[in-house]
């Protein structure tokens, strides 16, 4: 009888549950924090990319609107070096031109955002125009000062 009473009783000692809970809660907190940081970084990037797409196409449409205005003016002329044609182009904002043999090259920039813009150029000669440039460029002017690096001399 004594032997049976001295047996270690079955059951879980105090503290095991607490240790287990702390471990599980720590694991879950870590996973939750990692998930949230990943999801929020992804969300920020997706939103920014979506906004950039909107900005790009808004600028693209605006550049096409300028092209439509230029072509509207050009449709009244057959000689694209005509003084009156160039004078009318002067009335358009942010539009520049250069005389080329047999016509005029017209160029303009449409800002996408504060870092980039769409640089467009069309060449009027003969019976119509040719788009010679339609690309995104950086809004920053490159520094004319060369970098102070060893040139091997």
């Amino acid at each position, binding site marked *: 009888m004594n032997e049976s009473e001295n047996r270690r*009783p079955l*059951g879980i000692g105090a503290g095991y549950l607490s240790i287990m809970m702390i471990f599980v809660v720590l694991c*879950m907190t870590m996973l939750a924090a990692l998930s949230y940081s990943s999801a929020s970084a992804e969300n920020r*990037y997706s939103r920014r990319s979506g906004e950039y797409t909107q900005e790009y196409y808004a600028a693209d449409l605006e550049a096409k609107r300028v092209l439509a205005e230029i072509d509207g003016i050009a449709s009244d002329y057959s000689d694209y070096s005509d003084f009156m044609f160039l004078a009318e182009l002067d009335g358009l904002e942010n539009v520049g031109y250069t005389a080329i043999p047999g016509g005029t090259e017209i160029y303009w920039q449409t800002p996408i955002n504060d870092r980039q813009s769409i640089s467009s150029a069309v060449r009027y000669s003969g019976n*119509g125009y040719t788009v*010679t440039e339609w690309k995104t460029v950086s809004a920053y002017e490159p520094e004319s000062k060369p970098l102070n690096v060893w040139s091997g001399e």
Partner: protein
Amino acid sequence: MKMNRADSRRFSDTISSAGSMTLFLLFAVCCLIIIAAAASAYSRISSNYEDTFNSAAAVRYVTNKLRACQSAEIAGENVIILSDEGYKTVIYEKDGTIYERLVPDGREVSAEDGEAVFRADGYTVTDCGSGLVSISAEGDGGRVFTAYCRIPEGGVSG
């Protein structure tokens, strides 16, 4: 009588111990299930994250490069050559990785020795005609990102 009381006490102790053990095991199993569910949620979110920052970003990168160049051409399977003043950029895919290489004008242009820029499985460049190119890449979870883009040809007449 005394023996009976001791027996019944021992029996009730055993039942209590077994009950507490069962509760503990139940709690442990629940904890494991919860950790597994949390890990699976994390892996799903992480896979989405990987897709966004690899495959989707790769497609965006290539379309932005196409928009920013003077002219472009598709030269072979999944190889794009972008031309700008003074240099050419070759963007090509090899073993699920997208490489980029800058080549000065006058040098031979080849889709080799480029710098790895993105990891993107199933990257394909398809010429759709009408000056359009379709660029697509597949994410780890089988999600496909496709974007069309106009190829600048250096002269569109009107």
